[in-house]
């Protein structure tokens, strides 16, 4: 175990996966990841084609082209960069190319803001990419290795994006255990594409299809997404067997078994919530956590099962679907529909890097407690710590 920056932990995991092509454009707070990989290639530590592109649209386009030749590809981006990739993200999924990308989760402009929330990835929810969110540097690193195994499975063949909270995880220095090259080689076989471009065997990628088959192609992607649910769980177990670390499957739980109130959230806020829950538990409060690791495919069944005995759930969203509510909250409520589940409250928080500390979590728990007792919510969705004085 070694103390290192989260970005380096990710770069080391990428190196261990031996990608053939890396294409990236630097953008805060993703920069340290791709700088480190660029250095590895320049110093000969990683034999790979590192393509310096002029934009994120090109970065993803290079990954699409390279992946179509059967190359293992990697990129990383965030925020505006991911927004610029938007149309190519849909192509990568539609062409069934198992690209792996790290998203150093950051807010979207305007106003411009370089700090963490989940709006970038949430805004690409429907692109056909598998979406995983990590809690700490170790998980963000280990998920790279798992992601290739999930993406390249012949039943799946979908790209995977792994969220790691910008600055909070990309720039934190934490103890991280790196996976040895030998073990990664053993865990992750070479990419074996089912179809790929060569000069001897030319193919057409990106053909037009008509209304008589477009639905069927979308259905095939949807089916692959559904199959990925099982695969993500299996790969997490295989990873545990090989490396001894486990983060849960589609979801993970913490102090959840007898909890009256469950906090549902994604990403690094889970760490803060665990500390808050420990303190609340010592005061006798029955509070627990459901960590949503996989957002697409959406683990509806696992969420229903894990929350069925709770009296209430508080869903924390580091994003807002403007004009409605947090995206995770919407999906969780949809999953619970008709299931006689717990009361559900939504909290929008941590936007644009606003701190979420133990007190924030405890305030949310206090509000939920009140709602459980009275059976009514003050507000179904609340902007946490909203500063009314400046409005």
């Amino acid at each position: 175990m070694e103390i290192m920056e989260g970005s380096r932990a990710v770069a080391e995991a990428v190196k261990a996966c031996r990608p053939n092509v890396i294409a990236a454009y630097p953008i805060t707070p993703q920069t340290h990841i791709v700088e480190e990989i660029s250095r590895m290639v320049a110093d000969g530590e990683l034999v790979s084609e590192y393509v310096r592109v002029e934009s994120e649209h090109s970065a993803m386009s290079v990954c699409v082209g390279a992946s179509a030749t059967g190359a293992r590809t990697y990129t990383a981006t965030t925020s505006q960069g991911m927004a610029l990739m938007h149309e190519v993200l849909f192509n990568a999924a539609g062409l069934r190319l198992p690209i792996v990308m790290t998203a150093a989760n950051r807010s979207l402009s305007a106003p411009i803001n370089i700090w963490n929330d989940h709006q970038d990835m949430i805004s690409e929810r429907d692109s056909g990419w598998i979406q995983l969110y990590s809690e700490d540097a170790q998980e963000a690193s280990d998920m790279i290795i798992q992601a290739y195994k999930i993406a390249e499975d012949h039943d799946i063949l979908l790209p995977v994006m792994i969220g790691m909270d910008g600055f909070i995880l990309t720039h934190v220095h934490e103890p991280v255990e790196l996976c040895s090259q030998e073990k990664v080689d053993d865990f992750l076989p070479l990419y074996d594409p089912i179809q790929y471009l060569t000069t001897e065997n030319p193919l057409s990628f990106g053909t037009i299809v008509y209304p008589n088959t477009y639905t069927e192609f979308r259905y095939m992607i949807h089916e692959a997404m559904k199959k990925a649910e099982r695969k993500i769980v299996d790969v997490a177990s295989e990873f545990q067997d090989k490396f001894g670390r486990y983060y849960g499957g589609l979801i993970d739980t913490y102090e959840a078994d007898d909890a009256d109130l469950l906090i549902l959230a994604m990403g690094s806020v889970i760490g803060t919530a665990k500390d808050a829950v420990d303190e609340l538990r010592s005061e006798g409060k029955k509070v627990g956590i459901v960590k949503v690791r996989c957002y697409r495919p959406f683990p509806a069944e696992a969420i229903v099962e894990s929350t069925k005995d709770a009296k209430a759930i508080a869903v924390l969203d580091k994003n807002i679907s403007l004009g409605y509510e947090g995206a995770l909250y919407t999906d969780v409520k949809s999953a619970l529909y008709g299931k006689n589940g717990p009361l559900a409250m939504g909290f929008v928080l941590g936007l644009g890097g606003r701190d979420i500390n133990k007190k924030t979590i405890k305030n949310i728990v206090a509000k939920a407690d009140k709602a459980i007792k009275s059976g009514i919510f003050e507000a179904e969705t609340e902007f946490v710590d909203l500063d009314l004085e400046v409005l």
Partner: protein
Amino acid sequence: MKLSIGSVTKPGSTRINKTGSWRTFKPIIDIEACIGCGTCSMLCPEGSAYKDNVSGKYAIDYDYCKGCGICAQECPVKAIEMVMEEK
């Protein structure tokens, strides 16, 4: 035929994609008036106007002509007429 993963196919898939069905107006070349200059062929975005090697005049491949009308607009002797297609 089963659909391929990602709609990846052998090259030449556009040949079976008969875009002529998209047409509303059909270009009709008056062979008597055509001077064989090739303007229509050079400007056709689909490569659907071609030279008939026997007559030396030009003809349209209706399998792929989308009926955009550029040929009729640009023909220097106005030998091409766009006619509403009726089925």
